[in-house]
């Protein structure tokens, strides 16, 4: 029997992002489509950044999670269009990033507040951070550096 797609989405929502394990690959917005093609489950994944080393790990993690649930015929498809955008991050994902100490993307082009103390006096240290998707910022209120998930 083929599991319902809603159930499969729930399973995928339990697959953590390998770099930022507090959010799932579904929260990240990279799972674009899940559908049955005959008895094969097709999953379309969109890479965040073209050179992101986590992309191949994510494909492997998704496939492993599905096999553990008994879905053996899985086809993972990489889909680059439309390109991934931080607009696809879920509300749950944004809230978890904030709790984890990573400021979620904000349309104004910089973090809204310090994820640690909530301060608003912020300075950008570098557009590039510890992973391709993050920039490096500092809070001038609590003086702590923090990661900002940059808009793309």
């Amino acid at each position, binding site marked *: 029997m083929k599991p319902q797609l809603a159930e499969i989405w729930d399973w995928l929502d339990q697959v953590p992002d390998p770099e930022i394990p507090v959010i799932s690959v579904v929260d990240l917005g990279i799972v674009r489509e899940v559908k049955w093609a005959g008895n094969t489950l097709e999953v379309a994944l969109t890479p965040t950044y073209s*050179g992101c080393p986590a992309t191949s790990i994510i494909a492997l993690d998704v496939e492993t999670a599905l096999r553990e649930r008994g879905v053996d015929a899985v086809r993972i498809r990489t889909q680059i269009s439309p390109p991934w955008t931080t607009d696809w991050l879920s509300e749950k994902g944004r809230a978890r990033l904030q709790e984890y100490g990573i400021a979620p993307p904000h349309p104004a082009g910089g973090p809204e507040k310090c994820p640690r103390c909530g301060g608003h006096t912020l300075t950008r240290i570098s557009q590039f951070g510890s992973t391709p998707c993050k920039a490096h910022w500092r809070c001038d209120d609590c003086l702590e550096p923090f990661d900002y998930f940059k808009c793309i």
Partner: protein
Amino acid sequence: MAHDPDLFEFLCRMGDNTLVLGHRVSEWCGFAPVLEEDIALANIALDLIGQTRMWLGLADEVEGAGRSADDLAMLRDVWDFRNVLLVEQPNGDFGQTMMRQFLFDAWHLRMLEALTTSTNTRIAEIAAKAVKEVSYHVERSSGTVIGLGDGTVESHSRMQAALDLLWPYVGELFSTDKVDVAMTQAGIAPDPASLRAGFDAYVGGVLAEAMLTIPDGDFAHKGGKTGFRHSEHLGHMLTQMQWLQRAYPGSSW
């Protein structure tokens, strides 16, 4: 996909530019002047290598000869590379690396913006993906060129020396040959010359703010993108980049 030698050539040019520059930039990994710059350079190298995989992956499909993106990157010899001479120039000091990056980024962004409306949807999709990443590259390299150009006497003189050295490599980015004509006629890619005015306006503005003077004369070193004659530096770079596949053919992990 039907084999189209001009299209294959064009894709190799795009992919070889990002591959060679990506490798050059990665040479800084662990050596940059400060940690933030080291991380930024590594991130940019990663973006460029990721874009290479898309360009050369499509080149493989177009050629249909079973040469994967990895094969094209690691098993071609220097005369088969189609990158512009600018990107193969050595890193020099940090300022020279950033000047090279800035001149390339300013061209790259305009090229990718134009390619987002390519009649070839695969190319348009790759460009739409890459343009987002390259917008960040331009922002950073522009800011660094301004910071160092309008910095200390020492940093200013080094940035001016870098500009004097690298400016003669700019012209090749906008040169047109029969491959470009074929791409333009098919609506696949813009005429490179059409990107020059936008490039000059942007680069001129940044360099003025950086207190740097563009050298006189329009002499341009050429021969990289046509493969006619690379500079001596590319072969040396490939001995490092391709070493593993040359010493242990077909190894994987």
